[in-house]
């Protein structure tokens, strides 16, 4: 009898399992269909869309100022970053000048938001790998950031903290001191997380060499943000195309060397340090002046289209907006969500790894489903 060549010898143990959409480690309603050979992942298929709310289409029926509210719901752990990218795009469309103080405060808010987002990421990533304590430590510090935001704009999650042309209000009294205080606490506590993880043998074994993606592949698949920098590509919108007050700030762009999960972890930790550095600089050099530019009462940008990108905590968040010049809402609004673009790399990352690594890898690319599905 001839051996059956067409059929792989071991397809008897091939198993298809659904991870998600209701799974504790998929960070929301992500569904990953895994084809397993034993415990090894042969292939992965990412199924999204469980959280689709039609933000882009809704925008076509809202006026320009109302859309800021919708952008809050994209990346709900970093809504200020999404706010900022949107208002800057509209300002670009309107050719509006934003006061310098407003730009500084925006930078501070964006960096605080980056801290909050990275803390949530670190916490959930560590929890996925089993270090539950780190999660609670991270959320403890994030709570302080949420308090700061609450004091500034009254909200703790969906801030709606930017306005086209500036900011809704100036900083509350003594807010800057509290932020500086928080910066000290944050740097101190960062050491605490690092003692638990950075040199922990188990953590190293779980993250080193896992989900390696080369710089060329990372660019080819469209990675952005920390995952891209983890592969050693020096690309940061804050440096390359400075917005807000980043041109006047001094900071480093950390990059990894191996492009594995551990490098992405180190990159994000270093970004936390750099964010603190930026916040301190911005608070130190905070200029006086108004926080709102001269904005027409009725915002009606001239006909035309534009694309503007920001460096959100997750990566490059961009808005493409087309205006027909007649209506008070965009003709078309398209979001380039970093989570969505980064998620594309998941099948490539997980192939050949074990089921347990899938969890680590979903964690390492740091996705928020609100942004993926829009």
């Amino acid at each position, binding site marked *: 009898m001839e051996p059956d060549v067409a059929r792989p010898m071991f397809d008897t143990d091939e198993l298809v399992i659904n991870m998600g959409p209701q799974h504790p480690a998929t960070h929301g309603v992500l569904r990953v269909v895994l084809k397993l050979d034993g415990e090894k992942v042969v292939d992965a298929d990412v199924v999204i869309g469980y959280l689709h709310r039609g933000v882009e289409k809704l925008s076509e029926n809202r006026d320009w100022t109302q859309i800021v509210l919708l952008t809050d719901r994209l990346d709900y752990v970093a809504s200020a970053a999404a706010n900022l990218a949107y208002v800057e795009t509209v300002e670009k469309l309107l050719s509006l000048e934003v006061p310098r103080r407003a730009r500084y405060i925006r930078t501070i808010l964006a960096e605080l938001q980056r801290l909050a987002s990275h803390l949530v990421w670190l916490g959930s990533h560590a929890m996925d790998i*089993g270090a*539950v304590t780190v999660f609670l430590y991270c959320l403890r510090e994030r709570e302080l950031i949420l308090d700061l935001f609450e004091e500034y704009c009254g909200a703790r999650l969906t801030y709606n903290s930017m306005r086209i042309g500036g900011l809704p209000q100036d900083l509350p009294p003594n807010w800057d001191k509290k932020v500086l205080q928080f910066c000290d606490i944050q740097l101190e506590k960062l050491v605490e997380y690092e003692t638990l993880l950075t040199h922990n043998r188990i953590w190293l*074994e779980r993250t080193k060499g896992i989900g390696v993606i080369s710089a060329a592949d990372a660019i080819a698949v469209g990675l952005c943000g920390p995952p891209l920098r983890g592969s050693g590509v020096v690309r940061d919108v804050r440096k390359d195309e400075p917005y807000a007050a980043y041109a006047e700030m001094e900071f480093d762009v950390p990059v990894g060397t191996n492009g594995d999960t551990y490098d992405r972890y180190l990159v994000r930790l270093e970004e936390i340090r750099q964010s603190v550095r930026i916040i301190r600089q911005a608070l130190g050099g905070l200029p006086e002046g108004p926080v709102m530019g001269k904005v027409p009462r009725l915002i009606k940008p001239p006909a035309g289209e534009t694309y503007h990108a920001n460096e959100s905590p997750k990566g490059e968040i961009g808005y493409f907006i087309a205006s027909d010049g007649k209506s008070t809402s965009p003709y078309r609004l398209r979001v380039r969500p970093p989570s969505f673009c980064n998620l594309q790399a998941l099948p490539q990352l997980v192939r050949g790894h074990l089921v*347990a690594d899938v969890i680590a890898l979903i964690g390492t690319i740091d996705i928020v489903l609100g942004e993926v599905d829009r």
Partner: protein
Amino acid sequence: MIDLLVIPLIKIVIVLTGVLITVMYLVLLERKVQAWVQVRLGPMRVGPHGVLQPIADVLKLFVKEDITPVRADKVVFTLAPIIVLVPAIIAFAVIPFGDQVSIFGKPVPLHIADLNVGLLYIVAVASIGIYGIILGGWSSNSKYPLLGALRASAQLISYEVAVTLTFVSVILVSGSLSMVDIVTAQKANGVWFAFVQPLALSIYFVGALAETNRSPFDLPEAEQELVAGFHTEYSGMRFALFFLAEYANMIVVSAVATTLFFGGWLRPFPSVAFLHFLDFVPTWIWFVVKTFLVLYLFLWIRATLPRYRYDQLMRLGWKVLIPLAIANIIVTAAVKVALSD
């Protein structure tokens, strides 16, 4: 008749209730310790500082609906939790909780049975518990539990080898398989075997963590990976049995660690004469205190470490722990032979 039936029966009842109550409060202790480490408070609502929480938990599990999946193998599905729990509890039969005490002038040893193969009995009993896990996963007729069960069985078998090998080196030192004799040997030598066999102790501890599915080896029930592992489909009372068994097993391995390495019911530094005043403490209190210290270590580790991956865990077991344990046996035997000449 009293010696043969009544006293053992009373002992069994005392041990059984003691174990069940300890398990309930061990769960609370775990939640509290975890919470303190993680800057939380833990259960606070039921009773002062949550001391009645275990009772509430048990009540909840009792009244919860007990679901059997439609295409599950019903008999096996019901039997599996029992198969896990029974070995965990009968293992207490050979554990010496204390020295002989006299009650109403009658000497009563504080153990249910002193088998001449006591240590092996524990190994044997532990190996039976594996069936409950595998069968529970299999009979659920669901993929996650099955994967969890296969993982669990492979893990338990691998680490059982390492743990049993550490027993061998302890037996070499003590010269007996009986748990009581092992404790008395520590008294005779005047030193806890933890100091004689530090390597065996560390291998045993790591192996015990793995055998009881505790962090960082809690893969069979890795919540983030396989939902809840082999008991995913279990609910209500049957789930409670699995839960009970897990914690009972923790107590067993801690008690065994205490007996083998920390001098069982002996007071600290049994050979130092001027610590004689410590003898006023009943022996069983020493035993309980030591066991709880070991248990606390379990909880502490859970709050600190991330989780191993399956293949790493297997590698650790087979390529590190087992060779080390074998080397330890060889060295121990060589030293024993050298000293006896």
